[in-house]
């Protein structure tokens, strides 16, 4: 366990050392030192700017994520269950899957104005198709023979749904959550860059214009830290929980 942690941390440690070395030897004008980035980070925390933009982004990520999961799950489940619906919607799904995120974002802002809901809608439209595809696959893989057991032994419908049907989708839910979170984060930043007046994406755009590289890196690391936190505190334990029976 401890050794695992060392191994995992090793690569990151190596990167930091390399960074110090590069900055120390070459003093490149476009790469600030780690210390400068940490200073900048503390400054942003002190001024409250980091929290302001981070919370806006987190709020958008959370809303968009749950909406996309809800819609994607429902759509995928129905398509996985009913062949007719699947046939009818499959073409649209393929188009939606391949629509460039930027197109959706631009159209959303043009048609709905530079509003919060336009931003969230753009993310949801981008993300929902992949989630639907994952859950469609999940529902197709439902083991009918287990559903028959539930039927023969007259398990009440809600119990049948919650304790026999749904557990078979847990691995798919985990996969959808992982890929969902990763993608939603990235799209939200682009959305903010294009048409928001706060959030990490907006702030990164500002740094870009003023060439403030330490600012870009400070925000990027915050972003990565939060992803790692979510992974360690939520996703890993959840994964352990649902895959315990596989041993």
């Amino acid at each position, binding site marked *: 366990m401890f050794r695992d942690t060392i191994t995992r941390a090793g690569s990151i440690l190596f990167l930091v050392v390399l960074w110090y070395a590069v900055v120390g030897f070459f003093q490149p004008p476009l790469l600030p030192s780690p210390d400068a980035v940490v200073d900048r980070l503390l400054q942003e925390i002190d001024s409250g700017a980091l929290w302001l933009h981070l919370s806006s982004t987190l709020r958008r990520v959370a809303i968009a994520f749950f909406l996309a999961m809800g819609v994607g799950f429902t759509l995928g489940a129905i398509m996985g269950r009913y062949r007719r619906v699947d046939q009818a919607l499959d073409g649209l799904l393929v188009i939606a899957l391949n629509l460039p995120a930027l197109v959706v974002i631009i159209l959303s802002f043009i048609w709905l104005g530079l509003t919060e809901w336009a931003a969230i809608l753009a993310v949801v439209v981008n993300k929902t198709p992949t989630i639907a595809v994952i859950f469609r696959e999940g529902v197709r893989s439902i083991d009918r023979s287990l559903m028959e*057991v539930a039927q023969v032994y007259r398990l009440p419908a809600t119990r049948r749904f919650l304790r026999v049907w749904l*557990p078979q989708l847990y691995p798919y839910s985990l996969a959808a959550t992982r890929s969902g979170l990763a993608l939603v984060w990235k799209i939200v930043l682009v959305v903010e860059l294009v048409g928001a007046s706060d959030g990490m994406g907006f702030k990164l755009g500002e740094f870009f214009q003023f060439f403030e590289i330490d600012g870009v890196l400070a925000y990027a690391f915050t972003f990565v830290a939060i992803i790692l936190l979510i992974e360690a505190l939520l996703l890993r334990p959840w994964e352990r929980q649902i895959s315990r*029976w596989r041993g």
Partner: protein
Amino acid sequence: MEITIAHKAYGGEVLFKDFHCQISEGAFVALSGPSGIGKTSLLRILAGLEQDWTGAIAEFDRESVGYMFQEARLMPWLTALDNLTLFGATRDEAYQALDRVGLAEAAGKYPRMLSGGMQRRLALARLLLARPQWILLDEPFTSLDSHSAAICRRLIRELHQELKATVLLVTHSLDEALSLADEVLIMSGHPASISERIVLPSDSGVADSPTDLAKIKATLAVYF
């Protein structure tokens, strides 16, 4: 119980056409016949798992069916104990049932960790907790180790008496049919019909009338 199947096809082939079969309540009936003849389909129709058939079942309570499939069909993500409590048994009842099938030690184990025979016994524990009036068994003892098979056979005989349940056992083993059942039905033909019905003398397994038994064995041996 009286079942009439006017029509049932499977994969383009007509399995049943004007099929008729009668089973007296409380009987222990063994059902045999060539593979693919529709024995499993018959059980599935009785259990309400088949939709596309026409006909009628009289004097039969679908609300009180216990079914052992050819496979154990356990929920892989639930422990042995939870596989039983899922269907409404209390933990105490579930423990008792596990004990009865010789799986008391395995309560916390997942199905993946159990041998094939143990999985089958767990499926039997599930059936006995349902306390069904109708027990449908689809080759439940094939490819079982002798220990598990013996436990299962004894339990099914006990259940039959305890619950006064009617048992319909699909089997390919003549010995099994003779030792458990009090009536043997042979299914044959396309579409299928009951071509032979032999009532076994009571306690045929113990063979108190050796000549009768030899005769019956000879008659039945053709079909097994």
